């Protein structure tokens, strides 16, 4: 069903463009990309995804037609790392990224999405009024803090159980000690090997 498979991309495109429209700063970041197109061959997807940028936003298509300014082969999880150009060489060497064309375009596109800065409180304010928006934002911030706290707490608890109570994992200091002993052992073996070679 060619037409039905378009739905997720049309929705994603709409969402991205709505978000871009809500961040006035994105307009300037987008300018450098206007008129350009990039094609992503993402391991997790069964087809290539082409992104074209115009003055009004991003266009997504799964139909691979014509040439693009940049072609990338990568994995979904690697995409956020592309915003930092210093990562590109490392990713290529690690076999996580293959790129043809202008790599700066990919970096700029990912940065455009990652650096979205939306004032949600102001957006809400326009829709439901200042007081309810402020109240909702406060609840949101508080609940986020609570979630973060409880996550940290459960992480501490899990560490305690695994290391001290059940003794399943070693403590960091034990691990470091073990690592050092291993290094010393390796050096000793190398010395012995050398000695053996010299003797024979």
């Amino acid at each position, binding site marked *: *069903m*060619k*037409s*039905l498979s*378009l*739905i997720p991309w*049309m929705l994603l495109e709409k969402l991205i463009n709505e978000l871009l429209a809500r961040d006035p700063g994105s307009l300037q970041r987008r300018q450098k990309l*206007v*008129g350009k*197109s990039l094609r992503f061959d993402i391991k997790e997807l069964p087809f290539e995804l082409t992104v*074209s940028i*115009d*003055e*009004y936003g991003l*266009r997504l*298509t*799964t*139909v691979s*037609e*014509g040439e693009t300014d940049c072609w990338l082969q990568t994995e979904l999880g690697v995409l956020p790392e592309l915003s930092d150009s210093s990562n590109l060489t490392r990713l290529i060497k690690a076999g996580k990224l293959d790129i043809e064309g202008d790599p700066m375009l990919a970096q700029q596109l990912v940065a455009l999405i990652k650096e979205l800065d939306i004032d949600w409180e102001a957006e809400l304010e326009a829709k439901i009024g200042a007081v309810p928006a402020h109240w909702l934002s406060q609840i949101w911030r508080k609940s986020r803090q609570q979630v973060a706290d409880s996550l940290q707490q459960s992480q501490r608890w899990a560490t305690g159980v695994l290391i001290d109570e059940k003794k399943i994992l070693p403590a960091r200091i034990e691990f470091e000690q073990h690592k050092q002993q291993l290094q010393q052992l390796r050096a000793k073996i190398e010395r012995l090997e050398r000695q053996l070679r010299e003797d024979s």
Partner: protein
Amino acid sequence: MNDKKQDSIDFGYQQVAREQKKGLVANVFNSVAAKYDVMNDVMSFGIHRLWKRYTIDCSGVRSGMKVLDIAGGTGDLTAQFSRRVGPTGEVVLADINDAMLKVGRDKLRDKGYVGNIRYVQADAEQLPFDDNTFDIITIAFGLRNVTDKDAALRSMFRVLKPGGRLLVLEFSKPVAPGLNQMYDFYSFNVLPKMGQLIANDADSYQYLAESIRMHPDQDTLKGMMQQAGYDNVDYQNLTGGIVALHRGYKF
């Protein structure tokens, strides 16, 4: 299909004189223009948006291109092309029907699509443009209503630039097993009633169902495009062949 060789021509299931068809089709669209968009959404359950979007994706449109949207009606394709060709490109929305053109123009202007769109009342059989003018030509759900389809295809070929492509989006012959009976029941029993209910016009929607059945099937249309001079003609069935997207190039 050999429209030129006969004095009468199909108008739905009726045979009418060739010179009458244009007027009869005009009556249909004058009657449905105001409710055209609502009816499209209701009749196709919104799927016409996906068909049109797929057409855009297959057009290879880029910034700066010149696009002709024939039988563009209420401007769905034109709106999307306008964004994609940008300020350096141009989209011409052409329709033979003045009422449809007006609805399209008002809709697009209200939505802020201005600057790179031109509105032209034109007959697809005799397009009023210079040779080799457009990079892309589309005709979505329009070719069916044209009296002399071969002449229209030739006229489009003439105004297409070398390297340009024509995309024909049109109802076609369902190929998915079992779909045919369901589709027939829907077209002849449900569709006219919906037309009566929403647009207060059952006859126009009866014509729609009949004209779809009289339209050449996928392979016949492909042959007609090749006959008119297009190269690398291919087609893709959408939604089980209810609709087909034909594509041909001028080299």
